[in-house]
């Protein structure tokens, strides 16, 4: 299998995203595309810890929020570039990621998930209450100043920005699939004791995976805040957001490079469509897409735990077997 066919899905996906802005200039469409790519990249970042290393976090909104607030505060409080905020966010997220990574060595399964939720709740409360600096629960509008240095970009430029990040994160995942460290991580995920017995530094690896995942999430947090132009603690640190990263990845295919992006396309399109469909109805009815989310999550983990990529692989295998069968008969 050549590199091109192995990554055919990604080539189609990212190639398509690169071509679309040249043809379609509809702001709504481009906005959806940016969000699909950003949510995909965020899910890919989650996948590094949750998929490849098997450390399932339900608190990744912590790192997203750190990135978002670092960028927004750097601009509004200090009048500096959001890029500097991004850097600061990454540094803080690495610190927080080290803590969570350390916890992942002490806690398993549900305990680890609980500790990550606790971290995001502590940040949510701290940011909501520290009104003097963070503006508290009202949130911060991020001013739009045109230019690359201030991340004040047009829709088309944002598509390429998000695309660059998406491709970069895809590359990180592919690296994790085919490198020594990636195989070691798979060992940690499948059987930690066996991996350790083989001389793999399982503890250090888990910390690294969680920390890298945190840093990647933080970068997207900053970008998202600059793109949307508003941050508030109740959203950026919410459990819903953390679940969303996981949900995209699980529906797309956990522990696969393309899965997070496929999940992001499906969920974002579904959300946009359902929101538009139910928008005219009584208030609260927009929540219906979240009802579908919840049901989808229950059904997918039960009936198709390998997600869309798994289903695709199964269909391909069946088609290949069918073709072989046909040849044998001929």
């Amino acid at each position, binding site marked *: 299998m050549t590199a091109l066919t192995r990554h055919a899905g990604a080539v189609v996906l990212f190639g398509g995203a690169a071509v679309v802005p040249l043809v379609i200039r509809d702001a709504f469409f481009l906005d959806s595309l940016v969000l699909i790519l950003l949510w995909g990249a965020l899910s890919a970042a989650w996948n590094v810890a949750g998929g490849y290393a*098997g450390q*399932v976090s*339900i608190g990744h909104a912590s790192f997203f929020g750190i990135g978002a607030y670092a960028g927004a505060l750097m601009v509004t409080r200090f009048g500096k570039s959001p890029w500097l905020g991004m850097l600061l966010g990454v540094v803080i997220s690495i610190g927080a990621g080290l803590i969570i990574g350390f*916890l992942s060595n*002490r*806690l*398993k*399964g*549900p*305990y680890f*998930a*609980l*500790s990550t*939720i*606790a*971290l995001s*709740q*502590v940040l949510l*409360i*701290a940011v909501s*209450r520290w009104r003097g600096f963070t503006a508290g629960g009202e949130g911060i509008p991020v001013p739009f100043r045109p230019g690359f240095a201030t991340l004040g970009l047009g829709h088309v430029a944002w598509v390429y920005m998000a695309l660059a990040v998406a491709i970069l994160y895809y590359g990180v995942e592919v690296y994790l699939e085919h490198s020594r460290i990636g195989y070691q991580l798979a060992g940690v995920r499948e059987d930690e004791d066996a991996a350790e017995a083989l001389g793999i530094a399982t503890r250090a690896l888990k910390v690294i995976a969680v920390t890298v995942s945190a840093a990647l999430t933080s970068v997207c947090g900053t970008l998202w805040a600059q793109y949307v132009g508003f941050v508030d603690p109740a959203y950026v640190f919410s*459990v*819903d957001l953390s*679940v969303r990263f*996981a*949900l995209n990845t*699980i529906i797309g295919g956990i522990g696969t490079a393309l899965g997070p992006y496929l999940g992001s396309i499906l969920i974002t399109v579904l959300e946009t469509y359902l929101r538009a469909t139910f928008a005219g109805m*009584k*208030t*609260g*009815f927009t*929540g*219906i897409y*979240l*009802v579908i*989310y*919840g*049901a*989808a*999550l*229950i059904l997918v*983990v*039960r009936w198709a*735990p390998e997600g869309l990529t798994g289903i695709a692989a199964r269909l391909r295998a069946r088609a290949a077997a069918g073709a072989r069968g046909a040849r044998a008969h001929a």
Partner: protein
Amino acid sequence: MDPARPLGPAQIDAVAQLGVSTILLGGIYALIAVGLTLIFGIMRVVNFAHGEFLMLGMYLAFWSFTLWRVDPYFVLVVAIPLFFVVGLVTYVLVMKGVITASHNVQIFTTFGLSILLQNVALVAWSGDFRFVRPWHLSVALRIGGTTFNLSQVVAFVIAVVLTVALVAFMKWTHTGRVMRATAQDRDAATLMGIDTDRVYRLTFAIGIAAVGAAGVLVAPLYSVYPTAGLQFVLLSYVVVVLGGLGDMAGALIGSLIVAAVEVAGSYVFGIAWKEIFYFLLFILVLVFRPAGLFGQRGSETLGA
């Protein structure tokens, strides 16, 4: 406060009030947490949708009160069997299929259930904050220098009675023993002829009945809205981890500790910061004593 100075009557009253508040709050937290710890202890599943059943209990109290003027404490008579059935149905439809699955599957199944129930409530009843205001909420009781309202006291008493009844059921009845045997060793219990599926069904139903009852009880004390369960469930994770997951007596002590931290924290630092203390406590406990304050060391890394 200067520790060297003898306490004046005002400080004694404050301390007494904090103490009474702690106990009242702790009793209610215990009823919420005891169902969670029961389900974890026996089924080895952390029910991330636990808070949503509490929320449904709160709505049951709200609608009964608003539509038919039924006092929440009478609703309880219906609520306990009703939530028992809800638990049974949820077990059969959702939990039964994942009981032997991996942690991650279980985490996301119960999380999916949580999102589903929250938003069913949102769609059905909107996101408005609702209030249940029965007459006893405005009756203030004064004992010594402390003041509290009748609703709090009745909720506390009922919560304690239900919790104690549940602990006694687990300890002294045959079914309770069968459930504990299954918790200790699923395979051995099966070999002894125990129908583990029935045990899990019963466990989940009892756990949900307990938290549904708690929802009805707390409805007059807090506002009712679709994500109301979240704050309580996060708190009950803290309680349950403090007491050791699966340890019912530990959950009682954990509830008191969390209530004390909350009450003292809000008194000293203001109500806005109260949650941060028990989350910090939570993280500290997870770091230093992840099996709980009284739990067996190492049980958390087994992931059970």
